[in-house]
Structure formats: C-alpha cells, structure tokens
C-alpha cells in the first residue's frame, strides 16, 4: 500500500499537476534532507535547488570558457530534469544543442571535442542509459592520455548523468553505476549530495584536466534546496567531507545516502547514545583515503552504505582498503549496508534501499560486536 505513495515526482509537469491537485497526499521519500551548513566561499548567496545549482554551474562555465559546449538528449530545451534551462537561449544554438538518441555517439563525440581542445559537457539522460557508451568511456576516454604517452588526452570532457533511486523509477531509471566506472584508472567520478556541493564539484570537474563522470542523484534535483554562493567556486576533487563528527562509529556514504546516514547518526545519538561520524565521500575515484582511514582509526567501527548492490559495489573497495590499512584499530568487521544483489525492483524499492532502519540496525550491531 505504502509502496506507491512513498516517493516524490520530479518532473516539472508532474509538479504542476500536483499543484492543481492539492488533495493528493505527497508522502516523503526514503530520506530526510540535511542542508549543507558550510559555505564554501564568502559573498552573496541565493536559494537554489540542485538542478538550478547545476544549471548555474554550467552557465558560469559556458560564460568563462568560450570553448565550452553542452550537448545531450533534449538539453536544448532544458533537459528532462531542467538542468540546462535557458542555457541555449543565452549561449547560442552552436554551444548548447540536442543530440540524437545515441549514447555511444554522444560520449565518443565528446571525447573528440575534448581531445581537440574544447571543453565538452556531455549529458547522458539517465545513468541507466550510459552503458551503450561504456566502451567509449572505459576504453577511449580513460586511456587516451596513457596510450598516447601523454601526447593526447580528453581531460576537458565531463559526462553528467542523473542517477539513483527516485521513488518509482524501477529497473532502468534508478541505478547507481559508480562502481562499474570506479574500476577504470584514468577516470574521475564525483557524486554530490546537494546544491552547494554540486555547483562547486561540477565546476571542478569541468575545469579538471582528466575526464570526469559527474553522477547527479536525481531525487535531489528538487528535494535539495540550499543557499548557494552566486559566484563561481570550486571544491577539491578527491576530498571527502566529515558531515557529522563522532567517535563510536564511522558511517560512509555518497549522494542521497549521506542524508540517510545523517538521520541515522541523529537517531543513534538521541535514542542509543551512540556517536556516529558521517563521511560524504563525494569523489568516488580517486577516493579520499586519508579522511576515511583517520576516521576508521579513531572509531574502529566502519559502516559503508550505498544504493547499488552489495557485490562489487564501491563499498567493497572501501572495506578491503580499510581492513588493509587500519586492521589493528578495528573493533569490528567493516559492514556494508547496500541495495540487494537483485535488479533494481519496480514495486519493492522501499525494501531494496539501504534505508535508515537497516543502517541503524548495523550501527547498533557493530557497537555490540
């Protein structure tokens, strides 16, 4: 029963529809949003949701770098999630344009553009559609610099793709594919948890001299609203953030899951007297081992939570590295709380997701170990 009413709809048209139907009960999704408290730079701010912050970042990038080009399926009129709204009008049809429905072509095209000196921002409409482009990303983009002995590279390429659970996306509109790409040296993979981080990290990705994949948790496009600095700013890639400091248990997540973990930390503290440290990894590749290991050595108890399935999820890499580096500091085995080793389900999403109750259970058990 609750399965159908749990989620939020995101497309603009649907919101309009809801607007006219106020009697519709709009239940919250599986997480509670925790706005970013840190302001990365001084100066004026404005209230933006995540799709606006991303649009703003691309706007600034297109303004600053005349070689920058934005393209993808339906981006000309704003993209299905409205990130590029108004950008074609402002920057011209030759810089912001639609492509045919051909992901392999989009990425290959972006690589060529980037290797010849343009800044390429390619949008894959859903991360679930990125797989036709897998070869281009893994074999062409990631290895360009290496295989040419440093003569050529496509570092000016950034691939954006909406990812993750959305409440009702079912098999092909919900997946988190970060782990597939994390297996590929040469790429950088970034996942923001809200508007402030999204803007800074995306600008870093666009300017970074390595090909980056920027996965945007689509459930946050509208649900996440923060005061975002108006000016351009960059956040360092490869740096994690301690969102909630704590002493007993370290909780590691990225994207939407960080918000789940923040709530878990709150419940653990208030109801069980357990102090949790929440880390937002932000960059999946290369991940910030220093922050993670320091926290692991401090708490001795690590839980990693991600939406993707358990086996070979990025949590596996973290768990292996933590036990290798921090073994003598550990009080309990590293735990993973993840999606199931099943395809992303249609009606069972609330059970599939590593929600706060599953994470809290892991916290309580890891302390008892």
């Amino acid at each position, binding site marked *: 029963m609750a399965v*159908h009413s749990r989620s939020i709809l995101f497309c603009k*048209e649907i919101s309009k529809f809801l607007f006219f139907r106020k009697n519709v009960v709009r239940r919250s999704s599986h997480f509670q949003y925790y706005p970013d408290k840190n302001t990365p730079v001084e100066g004026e701010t404005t209230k933006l949701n995540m799709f606006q912050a991303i649009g703003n970042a691309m706007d600034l990038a297109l303004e600053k770098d005349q070689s920058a080009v934005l393209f993808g399926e339906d981006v000309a009129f704003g993209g*299905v999630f409205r990130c590029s709204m108004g950008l074609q009008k402002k920057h011209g049809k030759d810089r912001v344009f639609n492509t045919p*429905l*051909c992901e392999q072509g989009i990425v290959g095209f972006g690589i060529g553009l980037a290797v010849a000196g343009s800044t390429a921002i390619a949008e894959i409409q859903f991360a679930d559609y990125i797989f036709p482009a897998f070869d281009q990303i893994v074999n062409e983009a990631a290895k360009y610099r290496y295989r040419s002995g440093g003569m050529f590279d496509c570092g000016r390429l950034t691939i954006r793709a909406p990812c993750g659970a959305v409440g009702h996306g*079912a098999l092909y509109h919900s997946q988190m594919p970060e782990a597939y790409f994390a297996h590929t040296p040469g790429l950088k993979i970034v996942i923001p948890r809200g508007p402030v981080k999204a803007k800074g990290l995306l600008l870093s990705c666009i300017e970074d001299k390595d090909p980056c994949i920027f996965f945007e948790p689509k459930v946050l496009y509208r649900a996440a609203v923060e005061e975002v600095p108006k000016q351009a700013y960059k956040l360092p890639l490869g740096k994690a953030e301690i969102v909630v400091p704590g002493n007993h248990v370290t909780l590691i997540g990225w994207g939407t899951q960080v918000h789940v973990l923040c709530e878990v930390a709150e419940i653990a503290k208030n109801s069980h007297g357990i102090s949790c440290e929440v880390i937002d990894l932000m960059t999946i590749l290369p991940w910030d081992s220093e922050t993670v290991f320091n926290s692991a050595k401090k708490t001795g108890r690590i839980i990693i939570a991600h939406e993707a399935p358990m086996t070979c999820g990025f949590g596996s890499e973290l768990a292996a590295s933590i036990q290798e580096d921090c073994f003598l500091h550990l009080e309990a085995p590293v735990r993973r709380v993840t999606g199931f*080793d099943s395809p992303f*389900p249609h*009606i069972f999403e609330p059970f599939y997701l590593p929600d706060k109750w599953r994470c809290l259970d892991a916290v309580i058990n890891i302390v008892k170990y």
Partner: protein
Amino acid sequence: MQRVIATLRIKLKFLQNFILQKNPNPPVTVVSRCNFNNEASFETKPYKLHKLDKGPSTSVTVTREDALKYFRQMYTIRRLETASSNLYKERIIRGFCHLSNGQEACAVGMKAAMREQDTIISAYRVHGWAYLQGVSALGVLSELTGRHTGCSRGKGGSMHLYGKNFYGGNGIVGAQVPLGAGIALAHKYLNDKGVCFSLYGDGAANQGQVFEAYNMAKLLKLPCVFVCENNGYGMGTSSKRSSASVDYYSRGDYIPGVRVDGMDVLAVREASQYAIDHCTSDKGPFVLEVETYRYSGHSMSDPGTSYRTREEIQEVRLSRDPITSFKEKMLISNLASADELKAIEVEVRAEVEEANVRARTESEVSIEELASDIYINPLEPEVRGISPFDSVKHVNVGTPFIPH
C-alpha cells in the same frame, strides 16, 4: 482513504454505465450479415520503396470480420492508454509510462499480417502489443500498477510487458534491435519459417547498434523485419532535427525497405504481409518504416507540447486519426453500421473499465519475490545485501516462455 474513495467512485461509475445500458446492444455476431458487405477494397496512399522494383499492393481488401476485429483491437488499445494515463495521473501507476495513442494502426496492422510462429520485440511503448499478443486488459493495466495479476507479476511495470512470442518490453533505446536479429537467427536455425518483427522508433534509429544489427541480418540473410515506427519525435526532438536522413525505410542501405502510412491499418497490414513474404522467400531482412504520430508526450512526464504545437496534434487527430478514419471507411463501404461499432465501443469500455478497477485493488506480489527469478539455479540460497530483519531467498516463480 482518498484512494478508497477514488476506487469507490470508479466502481460507481462502472455500475452506472452498466445499468444505463438498459437495452445492451446485441453482440456483433447476432446482427444480420445480409445487410452488410462481406468485404470491401480500398486504395492506400502510395508506398515509398527502397531497392525494390515493386512494392506492396496499393489496393487492399478487408473482410467484414477482420475489419470488426481491427476496429475492436485499435479501440481497445486506445482505451487502455486512456486508462493508463488516468492511473498515472492518480499516481497509482508509478515509474515511467509511455503511451501509444495515435499509433494503434501500426501494431494492429502488423499483428494482422503476423502468423502464429512470428515473433515481435519492441521498446517501451508496448501496452498495445502486449494486449495483441494475448495479455488481457487486466494483465496490462495491473502490470502497470505493479499487481500480481500483471503479465510480469507486477515486477516489470509499464516498460516490461511480455507475452507469447512477444519478447518485450525493453527500457533502453535501441537495445532491442540486435535482439530481434538474434530471434530471427533462431527462426532460421530452428527452421520454423517464422519472422521476427524488431521494432524501434525514429529516435532509436540513430543508435549505432541498429546498424550493427542491419549488417549481421543481411550477412546472415535473417528473416527479420526491422520496423521503424516513425512518430516524428525522438523524445523531445523532431526527427528532422535528430536524423541526417529521415527516409528511415532506406537507412538499411543494402536492405530493401518500404515506407507505409502508419495511420492506415490496412496499409500497414499489406506492407507487413509483403515484408513477411520477402523474409520467408530467403531474401533476408527487410526495413519497414511506419509513418505515424503520437498524441501524448514521449512519456507521462512530458506534456508533449513544448516542442510542437497543440494545433499540430489537433490537426492529426482530426485528419489522420487511425481509428476514426478506419471507422469511416467501414461505414462508407457498409462493412458495419454505426450502432454496431458503438456496441463494440461499449463492450470494450466495460472490459477496460473492469480491468481498471481490478488493477487498483489486486494485491502486490509478496516481498519474497524481491529476489525471485534473478537466476535459475543460484549457487547460494539467499540474496546478498539483504535486510538484517528478514532473509530473502532466491526463488523461481515465472514460467519460462521457452522451457529450459
């Protein structure tokens, strides 16, 4: 509570409709046949041909019985899509939902030509196809609402419908096209004389794998009909802005092709028959472009009006609607009476309405099915990554279409 009220309202409406039919129209078969023509012939719009000397016949004949069947099928699909649209707006259907209203003649025309052994695979605009391949209205609608009565037991949703000789229901643009070539290879290998209809849209026509499939199919002379359902828009981009050549029937290069008016069920049937004849006479694959139009947006989250005008949609509805135009043809040629067609409409409405009610109220499959049918023979009994509260075991529930 609101859901309950909504459900009650619908039930009430259903009952009212039922009672209002004080004198239910007699079943079609009872009406005396002597008043009607038993068959009629029509001229189709000209076909466009690629690498063919002679195309399908522009003169098509239909029997009264078939015409009534096609009308009923097209009307049912239209009603199913209307029901889907409403269910989606009420937030009872979740996920992504792509409607095919406007395109009914494509599926019905192809189905009319297909033989028992022929197969079909398509993308995500397949509610109508599932119905044509034998899934009930309830099987379609309750799949969309995620109930156990759905054709995939509610586990696939709108994009993942399956039926006999119907290989889905695929969510990734263009990914089904090479699969269709593979199915055609199986037809050839098993020597069952079957043909596979491998469907994709004008948007998907630009995916590289479509061309890979063309090449293999031609090389291996596979009995595969590549059907490009050209509805003019790949999501929000018109075909003219996405495709260097909009002559999709000729994009198989070395594969012969035909463009047919996809709003004319009889023309589609004729062209499909021609394609089947081509494939079964060992000439290899065929490209069939079916020129059609979708009234709705790409999916339910697309209003479909930001990249085209409302007038354009209205114009197609008024001048080219596949159901209205076919209805007119039937009436003008005296294949059926207006009353008779009205009776069919009432019957179809009742059928879909009943399914609509049940699609809201049937139960979902139990949580054990979260991990069902991932593998046929998993090496460990429980699924990894599961909740600490209950374990979920691997199970097999579905019946394979082709037995192992």
